[in-house]
C-alpha cells in the first residue's frame, strides 16, 4: 500500500496501459508546445510585446502632450482624442479612469502605449475580452488595428483601491 514501504526492487517497467497513456499525454503536450510559437507566425491576433520601461513622470508628460495635441472634445470630464493613422497612442490608467477616450479609424494601425501613473491596473477591452496587465513604470506596447466599427469599453480588472469598480474607459471606432 502507499502508506507502507514498497518491495525492495520497485524500479520496474511500466505496464502497457500506463505506457499508452503516458505516450498520449506526451504527444498532447507536444501539440500544445508547437501551437504557441506557431500562432506567433500564423495568428493574426498575437501580441509580440516590446518590453520597455518608462518612468511614471515621463509617461505622464508624454501622454499629456499627446492629449493636448490631438484633443477633439470632452466627455464625462475626460478628454476625447483622435490621433492620426499609424501614430503612437497613449492610454493612461490612473485611479480611477482610463484617459483619454479614443476615437480611432477602422482598418488603421495604431501603436498603443498603455501604462499607469499610480497603481497596477488591468486593461480589459469589452466586448471582445482582451486583457493586459498594466504596471506602473512599464510601457505595455501593443500594435492594434481595429477591424470593426463601434463603441468599445475598457474595464479595470486589477484591484486598484476603493473606486476600482467605477473605472471604465471608452474607445470609439469609426
Amino acid at each position, binding site marked *: 500500500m502507499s502508506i507502507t*514501504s514498497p518491495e525492495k526492487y520497485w524500479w520496474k517497467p511500466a*505496464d502497457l496501459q500506463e505506457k499508452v497513456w503516458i505516450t498520449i499525454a506526451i504527444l498532447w503536450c507536444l501539440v500544445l508546445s508547437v501551437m504557441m510559437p506557431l500562432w506567433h507566425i500564423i495568428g493574426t491576433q498575437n501580441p509580440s510585446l516590446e518590453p520597455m520601461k518608462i518612468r511614471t513622470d515621463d509617461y505622464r508628460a508624454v501622454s499629456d502632450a499627446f492629449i493636448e495635441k490631438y484633443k477633439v472634445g470632452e466627455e464625462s470630464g475626460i478628454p476625447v482624442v483622435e490621433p492620426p493613422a499609424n501614430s503612437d497612442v497613449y492610454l493612461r490608467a490612473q485611479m480611477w479612469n482610463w484617459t483619454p477616450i479614443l476615437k480611432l479609424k477602422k482598418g488603421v494601425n495604431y501603436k498603443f502605449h498603455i501604462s499607469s501613473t499610480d497603481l497596477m491596473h488591468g486593461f480589459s477591452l469589452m466586448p471582445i475580452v482582451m486583457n493586459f496587465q498594466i504596471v506602473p513604470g512599464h510601457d505595455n506596447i501593443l500594435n492594434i488595428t481595429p477591424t470593426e466599427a463601434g463603441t468599445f469599453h475598457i474595464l479595470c*480588472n486589477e484591484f486598484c483601491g476603493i473606486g476600482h*469598480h467605477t473605472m*471604465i474607459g471608452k474607445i470609439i471606432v469609426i
Partner: protein
Amino acid sequence: MSNELEFRTCPITGKKVFKATQNLIWINAVTAVVFILIGGIMAFLIAMTRWPAVHLLPAEMFYRFLTAHGLNMLIFWIVFFEIAGLYFGASVLLNSRLAAPRVAWFAYILMLVGAILVNIMVFTGKATVMFSSYVPLKADPIYYLGIILFAVGALIGCGIFFGTLAVAKAEKTYEGSLPLVTFGLSAAAIIAVYTLACGAIIYIPTFLWSIGIIENLDGAMYRLIFWGLGHSSQQINVTAMVSIWYLLGALTVGATPVNEKVCRTAFVLYILFINLAAEHHLLTDPTLSPAHKIVNTSYMMYLAVLASMIHALAIPMAAEVAQRKKGFTKGMFEWLSKAPWGEPGFPAMIFSLIIFGFIGGITGVVYGTEQLSIKSHNTWALTGHFHGTVVGGTTLAFMGLTYYVIPLIFRRELIGKKWATAQPYIFAIGITLLAIGMGGAGTLGSPRRHWDVTFADAIIPFSFDPAVILFTTLAAIGALIAVTGGAIYVGVSVLSVFFGRKMAPNEAKIL
C-alpha cells in the same frame, strides 16, 4: 511536554503514533479548521455581494473581506493542514519519533502569531491589498511582518519534516524506500522550501519599503517573484493533495500503486518544473519577451501537467486493481459502482480528482497558453480555475482525510457520520456550480475582484451581456451550496474532536 518517546500502536495500521506527534498534528489541524471557518464566513459574504440580486456588503467591506477570504483559505487553512500532514507523513507513516517537537511547537507559534497579525491588519482595514498585495499598493508594515513570520514558521515545519526523515532513516524505523505517500509529501516539502524562499526574497524588501527604508520597488519585479511564492504554493497544495489521494485510496479500498516507478517519477516532475511554470501569471505583462514567456510558462508547465496526467491514471487504476482483487470483476465498472460510496473518503477522493482534473486542470492548461491568457487574464474565469484546483481539489481531499484522522490519530469517534458522508457530495456539487458560473461569467469578460458587475456608479455607462448576470447567479447558488458543505465539515470535525466518544486503545474501527 510529556515524554518525547511515548507512543501507542495503531490497532488498524500497526503504525506507532508518538504522543508528541499526535499533539502537534492535533493543534495544526484544529487551527486549520478555525481558519477555514473564518474564510468560509468571508466566502458567504463576498459571494452574496457579487450576486447583484443581493449585493450585501458596501464596497469597502467587500474588498476587505475578499482579502481576508484569500489569505485565510489559500494560506492559513491549507498550510496549517499541510504541516499537520507533513508530521503525519514523516512520523506516523515511518513509525518514527518526530525530530525536535519543541522546535515544531515554536514553528506553530510563529505561524499562529503571523496569521493573527495578518488577520488583525486586514479586518481593521489597514491591509486591503488582496492576496497578491501588488506593490505599489501599500499595506501596514505589520501585515508584511505577519506574512514573513508565518512563512518562517512554515519553513521550520518543513525542516522538522526533513529532520524526522533523517531520524527515521538513522534509527531504521522502516525498511527499504519511503512509502509513496511520504515520498509525495517530501516532494511537497521540497517545493515548499523554494516557494517560501521566493516569499522571503519578495516580502522582506516589501516590508522594508513599507517602513520607508527602501524607496522604490518595481511592480513588475514584484509580480515575477511574488508568483514564485503565490503559484508555487498552489503546487505544494497539488503535490500534497495527490499524496492524500494515494492515502485515501489506501484507507478506503486498500489501493496499492500499480507501478511505484511511474508514480514517483511523476512527483519528481513536479519538483523540477513547477516553479518555472509559475511565470504564466506574467503572460500579459509588459516586461518579458514572448520567447521567455513561451519557454518558462508553457514548456515547463506542460512537463508538470504531464505529472498530473500520470497521477490521474495511476490513482483510479490502483483503486480498480484493489477492487478487482476483492472480487468486483463484473463488466467494466463494477469495481467503481461497488466502491465505498457510503463513507466520506472515497467520494471525497474521486470528486476531488474529477474537479481538479476536469475543471481546474483543463482550464489551467488553457489559460496558461500565451494567446489564451489574453482572453482570460484577471477575469472571473481565473477565479473559477483556482476554485476548481484549490477548493474542489485540495480542500475537498483534505476534508475527506479529516474524517479518518479524527478516529485514527485523535482517537475520537465521529459525531454525525451521515452528515460526514453527505458532505463531500454537497461540497462537490457547490464547487462545480461555482466554478462553472465563474468560468462562464469570466469568459464573457466579468472581472475578478470586483464589487459591482452592474456598474451602477461607473463614470462612463456600461453594462454586460445579461448572460454574465445569469452565470453570476449560478456561481452564487453554487457558493451557497459549497458554504453549506463547508459548514457541515466544520461542524462534524469540531464536534467530533471535542465531544466525540473517546475510543478504546485497541478499538480497531475507522468509521
